[in-house]
């Protein structure tokens, strides 16, 4: 059962079942656009964050709204759960990162994280660390238990950081910036190595990786391109033959258990990367506007 969650700009959130290729339904409670949506790690609930400063938890099966997390002062830009699904972290336009308890729906901590809107949050693999990036060009690492800042990475010129991913060994952090630079920062000594600069001079909007076998990165850019890179080859400078642009491909029937990566384009295509490294694009007939 492969399900994909799609959040739209009119505040609805739709679920697609990929194995049948069917639209399962949509939920709508937000009255402004949805900025981020994600599944919990065991796929039992869905979180949607939106511009109306609310984060809503949904039951994955019943399309019932389980909890509403109120507290942010302005639009929530990103949200994610920790590995054991007990905590939800959200970063917002009001420059704070809030930690919520999924059990009770209360805000357990407000972290005054950055000096500019927070663009992405992510938990480390064992749930003890929280990463947050922001437009002010810094990426901070927080201890989840004490909510204290442990480390700050700032790039030398204040580029807007849009995304953060971390390596499984926690030796380095992958940061995506707004002007097309993907940086790898080695955490021990703080050295930065740019990996991928200027994918055809476009802006990186979202970086994701295939979870189980993490050597492919898919980068979504603003110009409706999705570029998949094999990490091993990333170290060579921008070799063109590794860039595979995905625009339209046939629907694949061989989706493996669950895609962890999906992205939407502006012209109504949904790109899904399945676990078996097959990248398929579904032309969606419903009106999707992002």
């Amino acid at each position, binding site marked *: 059962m492969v399900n994909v969650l799609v959040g739209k700009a009119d505040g609805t959130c739709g679920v697609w079942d990929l194995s049948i290729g069917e639209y399962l339904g949509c939920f709508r409670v937000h009255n402004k656009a949805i900025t981020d949506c994600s599944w919990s790690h065991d796929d039992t609930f869905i979180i949607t964050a939106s511009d109306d400063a609310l984060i809503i938890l949904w039951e994955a099966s019943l399309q019932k709204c389980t*909890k509403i997390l109120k507290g942010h002062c302005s639009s929530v830009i990103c949200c994610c759960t920790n590995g054991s699904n007990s905590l939800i972290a959200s970063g917002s336009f009001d420059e704070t990162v809030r930690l919520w308890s999924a059990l009770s729906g209360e805000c357990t901590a407000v972290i005054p994280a950055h000096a500019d809107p927070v663009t992405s949050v992510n938990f480390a693999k064992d749930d003890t660390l929280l990463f947050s990036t922001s437009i002010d060009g810094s990426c901070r690492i927080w201890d989840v238990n004490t909510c204290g800042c442990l480390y700050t990475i700032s790039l030398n010129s204040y580029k807007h950081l849009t995304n953060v991913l971390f390596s*499984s*060994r*926690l030796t380095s952090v992958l940061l995506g910036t707004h002007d097309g630079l993907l940086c790898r920062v080695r955490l021990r000594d703080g*050295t930065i190595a*740019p*990996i991928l600069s200027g994918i055809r001079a476009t802006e990186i909007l979202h970086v994701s990786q295939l979870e189980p076998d993490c*050597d492919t990165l898919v980068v979504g850019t603003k110009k409706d391109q999705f570029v998949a890179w094999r990490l091993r080859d990333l170290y060579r400078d921008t070799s063109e033959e590794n860039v595979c642009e995905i625009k339209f491909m046939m629907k694949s029937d061989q989706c493996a258990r669950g895609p962890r990566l999906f992205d939407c384009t502006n012209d109504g295509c949904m790109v899904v990367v399945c676990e078996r490294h097959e990248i398929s694009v579904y032309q969606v007939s419903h009106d999707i506007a992002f």
Partner: protein
Amino acid sequence: MFRLFERKDVNRQWEVVEDTLSGGRTTCCAWNRRGTMLACGTASGSIVIWCWDVRAVTREFSRSDETDEEAAATLSVQWSGDGRKIVAAKSDGKVEVWDVLEEDVRAVLSNVGLCSSVGFSAARPKGDTLVISPSVQRAPYVRGTSLRGQKEMEMPSPHDAPIPGFAVCSKNGKYIFVGDAKGVVSVVDAEATRLVRSFDVPNATMVKRLELCRNGKHLLAVTNAQTLYGFDVDDAATEASEVLRPAREYASPWASRLQWGAAAYPWNGEFVYGVSSGAAHEIHVWDRASGELKCVLEGPAEAKGVTQLAAHPIRDCAIALGSNGYMYVWSRKHVEDWSAFDPSFVTLVDNNEYVEAEDEFDAKPPGEKQTRRGQIPVERLDPDDAPDLFTGSPNDFYTDNSDDDVLHALPIRIKPDPAAEKFAAERRAKWDRKAKRREERKRAEEEASKKVKESENKDVAEKTMETKAG
């Protein structure tokens, strides 16, 4: 993993009571392997599991076949090494083995008798063998968890007759340390069930509890003596007699004349914390290596004494279980590390005289590169030098990474909040009303425009009629 980034000089001693938790009248508690869950046994016989990330109760296990009057209080709880089972000793002499995920009691051993502690043997992390320390008549013994046909291997004791005691497994499961009711701590080889060595704890005639440090290197004997006695453990020693070595005593001139009630090591064994068995909530802190008393911490007096000290396996915090059934969370004071926010911040202890340079406020001539504070050097990555970013085995931050199948967290069960559903319903009603109003307005407009058109047509028709007539 968080320890990668912690400052090296942080003071790990517990300092303040951070929180008070209560979920039923708690009688005993135990951390799971990574400290993500806390299992508490209550006086009503149920086992409550707390999720430590959010400090909330996630599960409560209670026997459905027992009524409230029959339910016996829980005397001790322990997790199995893989986190899937909990064993609880009850005050009616029964021992229950619960399966954590299924929330069902796997086995109830009814003929055990009153025990001071029951734990899983560390040698088989799957939770198959129990180490039972009865309170009366028998020496500690090892048996399996299934109900029938169980061989019970008693721990050999250095005395002539079997004597009740307190048994604790060493970290690798090869040895079992037994502190018995005559004040002797013995080392037993777990596989061969052979007594290796025994030590007389000085001035003690009864060993109440044995506490093993989380790193497996230290053992503390809480006895009826006026001092706590510490041992050093080396369970990988080739010479079996070198496994346990007496280290030092921990004495406190401020302790009341009562005996020591509970003691614990923190996760790294840096200190020794002891509580005397009176009504005072006072924790004495010693430096483990030197034996010197560092301070006495005072907690809320309403606790009326501390029955158990359980140190967190990874973090610098602990639970002090009060006699009133509440759990007090002790942890170190959180000091904000300002240089973590910006590498160029330096925490000053005293006022520093700052001498301005001559050209401090001069405008820098154009063309000179301005280095920003805290700039991090950018290096070009050499492809041959690039270690695998995402592939490769993860760092072993935890020793249990090699054990497959360890359960660290329970599936979250979120109760739907009726207020949320109401909010959603209100919003939907509002949208429906707006949509309806919009429809009505559209219809009204259409009718109005139709009417206008009709009247126009009529005018046009009349005009043509007139022109025709005229």
